[in-house]
């Protein structure tokens, strides 16, 4: 349980004078759900980009996955090792059905199924898991936001990842839909997948995460259990605010 699956040391990314992420050390333990919170522009998404190496690489620092250094690898190589992610701005592949979209994950993920037909067969069960079986032959252009968010999740799952990075999969959903995703995330975690969640929906992230890391202006300001974070002075003054701390405190 305490094995470290993903670790960052002194991870730093600057854009000109701007310090998007500054000297961040982080550790993700195998089998946990780790929440990432902080205001927009705090560097959460930039950090995810660096883990997948989908943007210009980090300026300084090192990232390890299962002990192997990955910060110089190509995105597809990192994907092959068993790391997959979703995007904050959902990016389904247009001109394909929901099933075809998800089957790409099976075709090119860890399993590398060669045949497009088999990949689609394997994908069906994953669509069922995210409650999209009814919509498998619908072109992605015709899906609604909630369905696209789940499709995005299914696509990442089709790669059969050990580590799943979720960037705001609940943004823009209503409470019922959020609940659905929360349950799904917990279920995936029980199957043994390690999950990192970036989220603004405070209730959700406090509810599902075992640990939470708070970022502010590109720096890590706190790590701890949801309870510790809720009562952390620096987090309250920089991010949550007194009103929130009180309000949510009384709810709990």
């Amino acid at each position, binding site marked *: 349980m305490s094995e470290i699956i993903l670790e960052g040391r002194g991870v730093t990314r600057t854009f000109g*004078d*701007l310090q998007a992420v500054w000297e961040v050390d982080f550790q993700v333990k195998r089998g946990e759900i780790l929440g990432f919170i*902080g*205001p*927009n*522009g*705090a560097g959460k998404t930039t950090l995810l980009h660096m883990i997948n190496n989908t943007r210009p690489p980090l300026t300084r620092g090192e990232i390890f996955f299962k002990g192997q250094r990955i910060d110089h690898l190509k995105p597809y190589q990192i994907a092959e090792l068993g790391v997959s992610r979703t995007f904050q701005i959902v990016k389904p592949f247009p001109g394909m059905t929901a099933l075809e979209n998800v089957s790409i994950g099976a075709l090119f993920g860890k399993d590398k199924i060669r045949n497009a037909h088999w990949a689609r067969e394997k994908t069906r069960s994953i669509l069922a898991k995210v409650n999209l079986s009814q919509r498998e032959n619908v072109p992605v252009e015709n899906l*609604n*936001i*909630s369905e696209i968010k789940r499709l995005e999740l299914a696509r990442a799952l089709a790669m059969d990842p050990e580590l799943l990075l979720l960037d705001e999969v609940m943004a*823009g*959903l*209503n*409470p*019922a*839909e*959020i*609940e659905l995703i929360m349950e799904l995330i917990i279920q995936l975690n029980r199957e043994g997948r390690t999950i990192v969640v970036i989220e*603004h929906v*405070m*209730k959700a992230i406090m509810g599902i995460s075992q640990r939470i890391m708070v970022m*502010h*202006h590109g720096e890590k300001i706190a790590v701890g259990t949801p309870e510790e974070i809720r009562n952390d002075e620096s987090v309250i*003054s*920089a*991010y*949550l*605010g007194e*009103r*929130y701390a009180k309000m949510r405190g009384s*709810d709990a």
Partner: protein
Amino acid sequence: MLKVESLNAGYGDVQILWNLSIDIEPGSITALIGSNGVGKTTLLRTIAGAIKPYSGSIFYKEENITRLSQPNRAGMGIMMVPEGRQLYSGLTVEDNLMMGAYTRRDKKKIKEDLEWVYTILPRLKERRKQLAGTLSGGEAQMCAVARGLMAAPKLLLLDELSLGLAPVIVDDLIKVLKGIHESQDITILLVDQDVQIALELASRGYVIVHGSVEMSGESEKLLKNPDIRKAYMGI
């Protein structure tokens, strides 16, 4: 102030608003409530003139503005502060603010308004020569609100003010907006995914479901309504 009558609108073939009507009192703050995708932003954009409706009409100060373009409406004092700020990252903060006054011709008054905006949002004055792209999330949202104010708006449309901001910053923004509303002759129509915040700011609310008005009423009553608390606040 603003009267929307049986509005049908959408994007291309995808209709989003269905026969929607609302009525807004001068000087009020009104909130639109509903889950994502029900058409709140579409309604704001249609009122601002960014989307042409299929049918229905929009009256602003008794005048039918349904056929007017967005620049025309901006000139009449209808100004939107869009979701995601939409600032010009490569221009200075001051240039961004001055662009808010794009449709205005009264140079002297624009200068005065700029000074006024700087007094209520002193952070922006400190950063006036800085590029907008270097602002933090909270500052950028303030800059977007300030840019909207530079249009000397009579009707301000605020879309997702609190999205992605630290709750601490949102508290500040709410204070600023309340101050502006008390001191200026301004009507506000807002959308926020945090229903608590929206109804705290507004005196009235419209609940929108599938592109039509499902319910409307005073904010306190809506806040106490158990259905609304369950559906939109997850309590």
